[in-house]
């Protein structure tokens, strides 16, 4: 029993491994599949699978999924591949700020729109009380910029509070837009 377990393929922090297409093709236990990842964005934010059809998905580091706009050999031992995109292997999957800024324009649900001072406070990394009737959990937080809804990042909505998950290195003190 213990021998079998030792031989089981595992995730490696040293290389990028392509996500299996489906659960049937999964070899590394608990690795997210392409089908689950694309399905998650559709289910959670209404982003159509077509948005990701030219992308391949990779795991490096436990649960850290990367989106690459193309294809390459598998596995691949390098430092970065595409964009760090989604955190899996935890109860609630969490998209990255950069992924939401890049792909979140197509989101149609679980999008909270802020304006004026609330948008500025979100970008500065502040938590704030807001009215929200929708799902709890990770939301796309957006605001209007020159006439279009532009995603700013990821908010965590719990108990009437919207927590900003904008990473320290991306937080800015920005002017309040009218």
């Amino acid at each position, binding site marked *: 029993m213990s021998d079998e377990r030792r031989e089981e*393929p595992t995730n490696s922090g040293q290389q990028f491994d*392509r996500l299996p297409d489906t659960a049937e093709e999964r*070899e590394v236990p608990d690795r997210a599949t392409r089908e689950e990842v694309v399905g998650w964005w559709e289910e959670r934010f209404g982003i159509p699978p077509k948005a990701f059809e*030219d*992308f391949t998905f990779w795991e490096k580091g436990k649960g850290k999924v990367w*989106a*690459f*706009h*193309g*294809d*390459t*050999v*598998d*596995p*691949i*031992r*390098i*430092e*970065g*591949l*595409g*964009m*760090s995109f989604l955190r899996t292997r935890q109860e609630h999957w969490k998209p*990255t700020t*950069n992924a939401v*800024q*890049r792909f979140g324009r197509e989101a149609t649900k679980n999008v909270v729109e802020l304006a004026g001072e609330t948008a500025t406070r979100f*970008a500065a990394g502040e938590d704030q009380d807001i009215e929200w009737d929708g799902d709890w959990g990770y939301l796309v937080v957006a605001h209007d*910029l*020159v006439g279009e809804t*532009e995603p*700013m990042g990821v908010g965590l909505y719990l108990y009437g509070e919207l927590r900003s998950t904008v990473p320290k*290195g*991306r937080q*800015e*003190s*920005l*002017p309040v*837009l009218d």
Partner: protein
Amino acid sequence: MNPLERYAPLVDDEETFFAACERPLPSVVRVNTIKTTPARAREALDEEGVGYEPAGWHDGILKLDGRSPGTTWPYFHGWLHGQEEVSALPALAVDPEPGEFVWDACAAPGSKTTQLAAQMDDTGLLVGNDNNLGRLSALRHNAERLGVTNLAVTNQDARNFSLKPFGSDQFGGRRYDSDGGDDDGDNDAPADAAREAFDRALVDAPCSCEGTVRKNPDVLDQWTLDHVHSVAGIQKGVLRRAIQATKPGGTVVYSTCTFAPEENEAILSHALEEEDCRMVEFDSPLETVPGVTEWDDEEYHPDVTKAHRVYPHHNDTGGFFCAKLEVKA
């Protein structure tokens, strides 16, 4: 001695050259077309009341009035990247096409890398390499903020860069054409994903950087001739590797932000003698002068005149050097 004085014999007008080197540079941004258009970026700056002036020769390059770009909404959204005007030249010379396999040999912190990604419409495979692991995090941070998804980041010594991670059997690599490439027992390495040689490469080499004096006056205090000679050895090694790793007919661009011929024309001359390549002319949208064929009792390959030298007084920018080579078929 002010090291800039050694370049007085090379410039047309010493006085305006020295005067320009004393003036600080304006804050300049490049519009990131992976996330927006130049028109929308300008509208967003207008909405915030940030003044700017287009560079004139490129609709995606804007000179800001005073304010640092980091404190604007379009910057927060990755629509803008702070990048000195003249440093937009090398990626324009590389001129990559969407879908190509492109190498940026000395990529961190990524201004030129992300510009290449935008020119490639964020498709194909762009390899951003740097030998300094600490600087790689800046490269990754910038690339992700700008929404780049076609980038592979590597941490190798560019002088003996191996394409092995990308499935090549050349340059120290091996093909992943069977299941030999990994050991997990399945057949997950399609041969068509392996890449043998780059379509284009950019060597934006580490250098003695006098061209950045308007941004960082300290470079003059740190300047030594010994450093020029030691960095020249690295430059030769990286440029030769870029030529070797690029397919026949492919493009290699060499750039620096130094005026030193030892780090510019001498490096090109060495590559032209040692590798199968030739200099190619290209149009510069900025005013430039040709590369020099003589310096300090040295003579360089006559074709180095096809390279561009940019002095600060010509376009009110930093100083720069940029050359385009073609790998012989």
